[in-house]
């Protein structure tokens, strides 16, 4: 590319690159799936999804796509602006109290999730072949404050740099749930709820909380939270996963 570049690469390099690109190519459906998730996180509606056909693609074939692609999503995003403010204000007081409580719990339990080997994966495709981890018998329920389902997230206000932190907490919680480390998972989810009550991944958190409750044998709580989640986020991309978890329990 330039004479300033020392160290030519071996001749086979280009062939290796081509083979690798075909080996690592995204599987069918991944593009649409991720696009719908991006739309949910950013609160984007039909303009984003329709432009690339994610809303109508046959490969997607999901009710979430239809819901997001429709006019309802655009209207919902607009309406959320007003609703979010009021709801968030109402929550703020109780969250402050909760945050203090949660901090104590987190400090007591410690956070070990970040170093756990990840065993569980999220996508449906991957889930079907993921190693199965049998959880130990459910421990006695812990009086653990978990923030209630948040209203629509307010992405415009969320600082950009916290996404990695949010992802770290939820990743850790997911791993802990998969390995049956339920108190640790709870601590991480509580921490996320305290630090990012209306965070960018708040819906993902709630889906994990519901799964954790199921694992803890707190099925009634799980169902009531799922119901509330459905009312607050009728078009959430998390709903199919939540429904799966509830069905598995049955």
């Amino acid at each position, binding site marked *: 590319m330039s004479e300033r570049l020392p160290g030519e690469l071996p001749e086979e390099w280009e062939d290796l690159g081509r083979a690798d690109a075909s080996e690592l190519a995204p599987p069918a459906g991944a593009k649409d799936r*991720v696009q719908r998730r991006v739309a949910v996180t950013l609160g984007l509606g039909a*303009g984003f999804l329709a432009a690339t056909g994610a809303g109508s693609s046959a490969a997607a074939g999901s009710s979430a796509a239809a819901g997001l692609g429709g006019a309802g999503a655009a209207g919902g995003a607009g309406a959320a602006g007003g609703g979010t403010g009021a709801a968030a204000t109402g929550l703020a007081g109780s969250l402050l109290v909760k945050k203090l409580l949660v901090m104590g719990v987190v400090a007591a339990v410690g956070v070990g999730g970040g170093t756990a*080997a990840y065993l569980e994966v999220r996508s449906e495709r991957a889930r079907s072949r993921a190693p199965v981890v049998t959880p130990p018998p459910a421990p006695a329920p812990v009086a653990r404050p978990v923030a209630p389902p948040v209203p629509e997230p307010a992405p415009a206000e969320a600082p950009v740099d916290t996404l990695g932190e949010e992802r770290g907490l939820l990743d*850790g919680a997911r791993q802990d749930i998969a390995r049956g480390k339920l108190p640790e998972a709870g601590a991480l989810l509580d921490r996320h709820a305290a630090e990012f009550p209306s965070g960018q991944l708040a819906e993902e958190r709630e889906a994990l909380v519901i799964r954790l409750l199921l694992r803890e044998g707190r099925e009634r709580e799980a169902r009531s939270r799922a119901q509330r989640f459905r009312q607050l986020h009728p078009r959430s991309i998390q709903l199919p996963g939540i429904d799966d978890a509830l069905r598995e329990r049955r």
Partner: protein
Amino acid sequence: MGFPDDTAFAAAYDTEFEAVWLYLRRLGVPEADVEDAVHDVFVVAHRRYGTYDRARPLRPWLLGIAFRIAAQWRRRHRLEVPVAQPEREFPDDARAPDEVVASRQASRRLHAALARLDIDQRAVVVMHDLNGIPVPEIASALDVPLNTVYSRLRLGRAKITAALRGEP
């Protein structure tokens, strides 16, 4: 400041999705986590659009964000014992079995070589030698001096050449 409009963002997603995916995979994000990582890249890109210099091409800028996401992923997972990944299946692969094997072996060879590089060198070598992005664009995307990019490229290429030749 987000993208000027949803259609422009959708067009960028449509064009760049695969490149971002591949870049993340080549920086070591495993298949099970790459959908999360791609999601995060486009979410950050949307929010950070105000910092994007439109005189420059979009891809290097997006890959720069992808590098940061991949680096975060590695920090979170560096203490883990790697879990064996199930082999990817290609149910409707039209290629002959020996072609499939050869392609998989080539990919493994490449990744074994890339694994010798530290993440900074890897980010540069993949961008330059697999994505064909010129050094000045890489320097801008990663926000490092030009000479740093050259130096990482030189060191990275030397390690890769040694690895592919079977040298220790």
